[in-house]
C-alpha cells in the first residue's frame, strides 16, 4: 500500500461512517471533481477523488502523527444541523479508532472539520 492509497482508504472508511449517521442525506456530490476527472485533468487523484467519497478529504500531518479530516455533508430536513455535525464527528473518530483503520495511532484524527453544504 503506497502513501497515496492510504488516505484514500481512510477516506472511504470515513465516508461509510458519515453516511451511517442519522440525519445525513449524502456527502457533497463532488460534481466539480467528477467533471474535471471526466475531461482527463485528473485534479482529484491522490486525494479523496473516488466517487462517493468526494465529500471527504483526508490529509496526513507533516512531521507529526495523525490525520486532518474534512467532511462535507448534505443533511436531511428535520434534523438539527449542529447535532448532526457532532454525531458525524463522533462517528469519524470512532471509525478511525477501529481495527480496520490501520496501525494504532496512525489514523488518529488530529482535526475533524464538518461542513454542512446543504439541506434536502
Amino acid at each position, binding site marked *: 500500500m503506497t502513501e497515496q492509497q492510504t488516505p484514500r482508504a481512510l477516506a472511504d472508511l470515513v465516508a461509510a461512517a458519515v453516511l451511517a449517521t442519522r440525519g445525513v442525506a449524502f456527502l457533497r456530490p463532488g460534481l466539480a471533481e467528477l467533471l474535471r476527472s471526466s475531461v482527463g485533468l485528473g485534479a482529484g487523484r491522490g486525494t479523496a477523488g473516488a466517487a462517493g467519497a468526494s465529500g471527504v478529504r483526508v490529509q496526513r500531518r507533516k512531521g507529526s502523527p495523525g490525520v486532518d479530516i474534512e467532511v462535507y455533508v448534505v443533511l436531511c430536513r428535520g434534523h*438539527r444541523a449542529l447535532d448532526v455535525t457532532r454525531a458525524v464527528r463522533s462517528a469519524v473518530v470512532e471509525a478511525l479508532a477501529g481495527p480496520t483503520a490501520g496501525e494504532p495511532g496512525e489514523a488518529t484524527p488530529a482535526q475533524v472539520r464538518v461542513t454542512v*453544504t446543504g439541506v434536502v
Partner: protein
Amino acid sequence: MAMNEDGTPDGTAFGGVPEEETLPCGRELAQVWEQAGTDEPDPHTAGCPHCAEALRALRTLEGVVARARVDEPEERQWDTAALAGRVMDVVRLELRPGRTLALGEDDEDAWIVEAAAARTFRAAVDVLPGVRAGSCRVETDPMSTATAAPSARPPGRLPRGPARVRIEVQVGLSWNLRLVADDVRARIVEAADSELGLRIAAVDVVVADLLDETGRPDEADEEDRLDEELDEEDRLGEGGPR
C-alpha cells in the same frame, strides 16, 4: 395497456395476436370487467363459470394493488418534484458555495454554508400567513466580534460569533407591519435554534414590498422575486472558496 392503445387499426396487436381477449362463453374479457365495475346486474355473468372466473381474477388483482398501496413506504409519498428541486439547489450550491458560518461552540470545528442557512430561514418565514420571504443574508455579527480576540479560521469562513440575519419580506396589505416583523424575527430565531443550532445576535427585517389582498404578488412581482433570488445566489457565490 400501452400495447393495446398502440395496436394496429384492424384490432390486432403486434405479432398478429388478437388485441381483445374473448372468453369461451363468447363474452369479451374487457366487457365483463367493465360491466362488473358498473354494479349493474347481468343475468349471464351471474350464471357463467367463465365470467365468474374472470371476475375472481380481477378481484385478486385489485387486492394485490390495494395491498401494495398500503405497504408503500412513507418516503414514496414525498413530493418528488419538491425534493428534486432541493437536490438541484444542492448542486447549485456546490458550484457556488459562498461564505461559511460557524456552528456550535468556539472549540468546535463545525460549519454551514450561508446559502443553506438563508434557505432555512426563508422557508421558516414563508409559513407565516401574509408573508413572503425574499433576499436573506447571514453573517457573523460585527458587533459581537469587534471585541473578541481574532481566532484562526480557514479561508472563506466567517469569524466565529453569533450571526446577524438580514431578510427582506413581502407583506400583505392588511397586516400590521410591526407585528409581522416581530413574527419574522421569532420564526428566524426559532429556526436558527431548532433546525441549525446557530446563535443569533440580531435579525433585521426589511419590508421590501406589499402583497395584494389574495396574499400573492402579481406575476411581474413574482418574476422580480425569482430574479432577485437568482441574483442573490450569484452574490453569495462571490469570493467563496472552491
